[in-house]
């Protein structure tokens, strides 16, 4: 069980699963010779050859539409885009085709495609290399939307996606690709739809996913210094949400802070907040707070002011704790 960073964990999982299942093929911009813009497919062209590791042209609509046709045939295509921000030309194929073919064919066809999207800020990418598009996908029945926050989960969740029967939008927080190292086991599976409590606490629940999990954990450490014990729930899968873990945390704390990078308005936090008010009202001791991006296009020079920072999360934890 080697210690790997997230990019290496994804690379190792792709390689292991491709050896196990010859229906898995990779296609995307620079996934072959370059080994992926973030190195997640390094060495796979050499190992599996150009029939299974296909350098696609830069038209994202083309990559995704082609992958849908491959998945319908019975392959398990994995498409990697350079940045989640470039997904929009393929949006029609994701929403109208990939997500819906099982339904519109009465279950006669399936589209088990894994769409890997490096997402999020923190890398100085400006408005077109930093976005968090999860809310668009979470509004689409038929998709599974997942965002890991560390190397172990990235491997385990990707393995689950590659062995599952539903199309998966797999959001990889690119600021965390090299963030930390953790052990990666080639048999480890993290079922999609299961959250993970990363830190136990009884005063405030902090719900985070993907890139905001390290921020939430750091904020929880800081809040502990002022005597507030925080339950940090890494949601991991946003669609379908692990409602049981969410409700058990709020039943314990009665106070919630939701942390996301995407714009606040109609973001995933809105769904989670509504869910808490519908299902946990009598547990709630304070308004549910969202610490998210502002409702502006992702800024460039003001990126640090836009992103949910430890300081903003700590302030929100203190506000709900002292409400």
């Amino acid at each position, binding site marked *: 069980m080697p210690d790997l960073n997230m990019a290496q964990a994804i690379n190792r999982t792709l390689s292991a699963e491709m050896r196990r299942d010859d229906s898995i093929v990779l296609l995307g911009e620079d996934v072959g010779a370059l080994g992926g813009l973030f190195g997640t497919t390094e060495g796979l062209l050499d190992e599996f050859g150009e029939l299974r590791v296909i350098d696609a042209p830069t*038209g994202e609509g083309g990559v995704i539409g082609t992958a849908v046709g491959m998945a319908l045939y019975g392959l398990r295509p994995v498409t990697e885009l350079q940045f989640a921000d470039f997904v929009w030309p393929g949006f029609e194929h994701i929403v109208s085709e990939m997500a819906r073919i099982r339904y519109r064919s009465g279950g006669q066809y399936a589209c088990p495609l894994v769409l890997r999207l490096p997402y999020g800020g923190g890398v100085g990418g400006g408005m077109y290399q930093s976005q968090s598009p999860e809310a668009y996908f979470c509004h689409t029945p038929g998709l599974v939307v997942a965002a890991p926050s560390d190397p172990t989960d990235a491997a385990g969740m990707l393995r689950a996606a590659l062995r599952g029967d539903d199309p998966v939008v797999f959001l990889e927080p690119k600021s965390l690709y090299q963030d930390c190292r953790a052990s990666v086991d080639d048999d480890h599976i993290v079922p999609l739809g299961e959250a993970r409590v990363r830190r136990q606490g009884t005063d405030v629940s902090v719900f985070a996913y993907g890139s905001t999990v390290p921020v939430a954990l750091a904020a929880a450490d800081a809040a502990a210094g002022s005597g507030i014990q925080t339950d940090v729930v890494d949601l991991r899968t946003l669609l379908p949400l692990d409602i049981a873990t969410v409700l058990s945390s709020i039943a314990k704390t009665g106070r919630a802070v939701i942390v996301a990078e995407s714009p606040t308005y109609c973001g995933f936090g809105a769904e989670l907040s509504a869910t808490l008010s519908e299902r946990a009202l009598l547990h709630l001791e304070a308004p549910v707070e969202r610490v998210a991006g502002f409702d502006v296009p992702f800024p460039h020079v003001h990126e640090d002011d836009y992103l949910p920072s430890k300081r903003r999360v700590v302030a929100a934890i203190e506000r709900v704790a002292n409400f």
Partner: protein
Amino acid sequence: MGELLTVLADDVEAIERNVGDLSDADLTALYESLVVTRVVDERCARLQQSGRIGFWIPSGTSAAVSAGAARAFEDGDWLYPSYRDVGAFLVRGGSIEQLFAQVLSSRDDLARGRQLPGHATLPAGRFVSVSGPLATQIQHAAGTALAMKLRHDPHAVLALFGAAATDQASFQIGLSTAARHAAPVVFVCRCPSTSLASLAMAHGVNPVSVDGTDMLAVYTAARSAREAALAGAGPTLIEAVVPAGTAALEPAVRLRPYLEHRGVWDAGREDEFSRRCEERVAAAVAAAESAGPPAADTMFDDVWAQRPWMLQEQSRKLRRLKDES
């Protein structure tokens, strides 16, 4: 239409050189598909007028293109149709009963009443579920053909679409993707006039223009294109030209003399087949209407492989609502 490939304009010997592989039964079945499509169109127009269905796009003169092209493909080949492809549906083994189960959203519809009339699914015939958005199936066809190539599957793919699809980005991307990989796919576009040859060539796709009212020309062109694609010569775009204003009966009128010459068709058989077809369609409509729709709860199936918790809850909620009413 001097530039268009035709077969039925030639003398009988020339026709037979072109379609010598088609038996009497094959030719009769092709002709019959035109009759069935016409009867289906007429019946569906009446169903729409009487409000029993909300939507019908007739196959009309496209019938010869759809069935003629589909007939050039083998079992194991894949078809990506559009919503004017009743002809291809029939050629791929779809029945009149299945068709009306879909049109009328009966409980026997394979797609469980989820799509508008004409958006059929026929997995047994590798006839992929028809999509609403135009041209997306062109890319999927290219993807499936690429997958076949990767898997060394000795089959080919047919994508059928209308001229409006050629305005979409998916058309251009599908063509260029197929050409880049020399994927075994044939694109067939129903067009009012020739306009696509230079576009096809720009993408590296072989262009062919045929008379779309000449069913045997469409068949011949599709068969050659399929063989070329399987031989690694790359994809072909067949533009099947059916000029605006062409009478719906034109393809049948053109094909019938040759069948009469072969002694496999005549006015008596036409009357008899049309009558039986009308009866079968009427029975299929009655059966679909009496079967009724699928249970409302099936709405929650097939969204994901399994129903997640929110669909389980919503299903219970709907059941309570219906129980109360």
